[in-house]
Every structure is written in structure tokens, then in C-alpha cells.
């Protein structure tokens, strides 16, 4: 199935979200795609609980609250979302429209593409162990999208942060066996989760390996076993169906670099008239773009979204003229 929309937005950070509002005022529909399983970009992934002080009209607002408010603000325009998938390719049809395709094969057909990709797509941090790449998608996975996939399977989780602990607890009831491998002797942060994990280990519900490190992966085609060096520096070979390394996420520019857009140091060069890129019909707004005087601020991204929408209108409604109206005069006319 191909998703049809007026504007396909790559990235559901604050700027991509606000672009839905500006587009909506001009009667353009949007579909957003983000590699993260949740919306909000850097705000929800890196600093959800931090206060922001430079959003006009908000003397102080918590990052996650700003994201929640943006979600509410754009609701009237019924945006649709594909989350947890990275946009991998961008192709152009003869009629000038675009097709974006994700890692999971989702295709989005649109008249305009808006790249609001921030610092790039949030990708998993990977442990340094040989052959990891060879087993990706063949037993090695960095995200738990559907816990049912692990029902009655043997799994090894590596990592010591909140997500490693939380998934260990959650999957302990679903998987046949869970081994948690952590480099240190104890867990920092989230004391209740750490407590729960050690109780599970004491009751024999999970296998907990502390001061332990991944050393080698074995299998042919798919992963079959993982070699782990334990506290006593002994090598253990543990049979498994899955290895789930959970070491947090970090943004990587990724496939955008291959879309024939003019780049300057990992940022897309745009024209400040309407934040258009060198390819007609593709705009870039927010942290991903660069121009003389660029500041990577949320408020600048919001401004860029407003100007972008005026020009995007001509691609969506080639025969009409965009009329500029205040929301106070015209209201917000929901779809």
C-alpha cells in the first residue's frame, strides 16, 4: 500500500510537527515519518524533562510538554504518522511527485517533501563486537517493536540503562529465557527497575551477568550463540535466538546524504526566501538546514516552517494563489 499525501515530512521533531500546522492553514495534508517510535525528536529523546526558556510566550516550558502541546495544536489537521521507520530512499516520478520509502518498505507518495530531520535519524549505539553487522536483522535487533516476537525464545539483552532494565523485566514473562549482560557491577539510575531485575535474577527468572562483556557472535546465517566474558574473565558460550543490544540512540545523518541535495558539513543548504533546497519541491527546515546566520533553535525552525508552507502551496495547488490570513480572523479550519 502507498500512503498518499500532499506533503511528506521526514522527521517528527518540533519543527516537522509545527510544519503540519502551517501547511494545514493552507489546506495541505501531511504525513510524518520518524525513525523514533515516538514524536518530538531531540526533545522527547534527549531532554524530555528539561525546561526550555526561549519559546516565545512561554517563560518556561518542559520539553515534553512543548511536544504534547504541538501534538494538540496540529490535531485539527489530522496528520498521519509512520513511526519507528527510517526513510531510506527518495525517488521522483515523471509528474514531479515524490516517493519516499522506509527501511520497513512503507512508501509515501507526495507532491512536496519537507526534510525536518534535525541532526539526523536517531540510530542505536552499537557495541564493538565482530560480525555484529552480519547478524543485524538475523537475530540481532536494537529495538523492541513487538514483544510478541520474543515469545518462547531465548534472548540476550546487553546494556545497563533504563531501556535495558525495562525490557528485561517486560520480556522475562514472555521469552523462554532472558540473559542480561552489563559491563559494570551494578546499575546506576532507576533504582526500582534495578531492584526488580536483581529479584528476577535471585528467583532464577533471568540470568544476570554483571561485569561481563560481549566477545563474539556465532551462527550461520542467523545468530545461534554469543560468547561472553564474565567477571572471572572466563568465556561463556550462551545459546540464543536473539541478541538485543540496548545502549541508547544517537543521531546520524544517514541516507539523506545520498539524495543529491547540496550539503555543507552535514546540513542541507537552503534559500532563505522559502527554505527550498536545490531540488524543486524539496524543502529543508529546522536543525537540518544551513544558511548564512543559521541558528539551531526551535523558534527559528518554526519561522522556517511558516515560510516554507507558502511556497509548498504552489506545488500542491498549482492553479491557486495562497491567501494570507491571520488565525484570529480566519480561525483554524479543521479537515
Amino acid at each position, binding site marked *: 500500500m502507498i500512503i498518499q499525501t500532499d506533503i511528506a515530512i521526514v522527521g517528527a521533531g518540533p519543527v516537522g510537527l509545527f510544519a503540519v500546522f502551517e501547511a494545514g492553514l493552507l489546506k495541505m495534508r501531511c504525513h510524518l515519518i520518524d525513525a523514533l517510535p515516538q514524536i518530538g525528536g*531531540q526533545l522527547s529523546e*534527549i*531532554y524530555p524533562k528539561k525546561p526550555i526558556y526561549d519559546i516565545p510566550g512561554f517563560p518556561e516550558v518542559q520539553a515534553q510538554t512543548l511536544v504534547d502541546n504541538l501534538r494538540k495544536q496540529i490535531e485539527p489537521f489530522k496528520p498521519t504518522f509512520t513511526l519507528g521507520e527510517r526513510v531510506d530512499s527518495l525517488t521522483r516520478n515523471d509528474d514531479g511527485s515524490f516517493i519516499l520509502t522506509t527501511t520497513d518498505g512503507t512508501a509515501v507518495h507526495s507532491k512536496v517533501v519537507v526534510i525536518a530531520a534535525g541532526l539526523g535519524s536517531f540510530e542505536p549505539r552499537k557495541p564493538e563486537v565482530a560480525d555484529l553487522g552480519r547478524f543485524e536483522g538475523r537475530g540481532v535487533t536494537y529495538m523492541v517493536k513487538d514483544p510478541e516476537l520474543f515469545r518462547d525464545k531465548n534472548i540476550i539483552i546487553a546494556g545497563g*540503562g533504563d531501556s535495558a532494565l525495562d525490557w528485561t523485566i517486560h520480556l522475562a514473562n514472555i521469552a523462554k529465557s532472558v540473559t542480561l549482560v552489563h*559491563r*559494570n557491577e551494578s546499575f546506576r539510575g532507576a533504582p526500582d527497575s534495578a531492584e526488580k531485575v536483581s529479584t528476577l535474577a535471585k528467583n532464577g527468572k533471568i540470568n544476570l551477568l554483571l561485569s561481563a562483556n560481549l566477545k563474539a557472535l556465532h551462527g550461520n546465517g542467523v545468530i545461534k550463540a554469543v560468547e561472553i566474558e564474565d567477571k572471572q574473565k572466563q568465556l561463556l558460550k550462551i545459546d540464543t535466538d536473539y541478541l538485543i543490544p540496548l*545502549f541508547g540512540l*544517537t*543521531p546520524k545523518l544517514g541516507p539523506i546524504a545520498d539524495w543529491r541535495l547540496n550539503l555543507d558539513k552535514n546540513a542541507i543548504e537552503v534559500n532563505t526566501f522559502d527554505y527550498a533546497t536545490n531540488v524543486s519541491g524539496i524543502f529543508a527546515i529546522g536543525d537540518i538546514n544551513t544558511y548564512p546566520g543559521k541558528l539551531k533553535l526551535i523558534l527559528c525552525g518554526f519561522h522556517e516552517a511558516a515560510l516554507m508552507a507558502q511556497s509548498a502551496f504552489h506545488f500542491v495547488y498549482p492553479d491557486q494563489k495562497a491567501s494570507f490570513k491571520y488565525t484570529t480572523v480566519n480561525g483554524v479550519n479543521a479537515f
Partner: protein
Amino acid sequence: MADKDTISFDVQSSTGDVQRLELPDNINLSLMEVLKASEYPIPATCGGMALCATCHVEILKGVENLSTPSDTELDMIDTLPNAAANSRLACQIRLDHRLDDAVILLKG
């Protein structure tokens, strides 16, 4: 050492190249800011709040001279796949004479 007005230490990139950095001791910057200004590819996504770990370094020599890391810093380091015993976040280290003759490996 304390009366010198420059601070100097070695920086080793992930590819193994070593470069000696020599800096005036009156600039109030973090090690992350100094490395960034010296054109090392450190994104410093969070701007120095110990939240992104893109400024992760390993202090190969001289870690004992540095101030002890805060809990927030240690929490962040603990989540990294490639952390070592002497791992630090460069944004949490002030540029001062305690860095003299240190050897810093970039890991972000």
C-alpha cells in the same frame, strides 16, 4: 607547572593520529569546546549538558589529576557500549592545568 600560562595535552583520534594541543590557560572553556574549536568531529548535540555522550573520551593518561565525575556524568557513561574505566564526557571537564600532559582518546 602552575606558573606556565599554557596548557598542553595530547589528543588521539579514533584513527590513531596523535596531535599535541597547546592552549592559553585563561580561556574559560570545557574540554569539549576546545576539541570542537580544534576541528575535531564532535557533534556535542546537547551543548554540554552530559546528555548526549557525543563528546565521550577516554583519558589514557592523567585521569587521576582530573576532578571526579558527577553522578549525571557517570549515569550517561554507564549507558555507552564502548565505555572504559577511564571514560569521561569532555563537556564536563574544565580546561585547566590539571589537563597538562594528559593523553585523551576520542571515542564519541
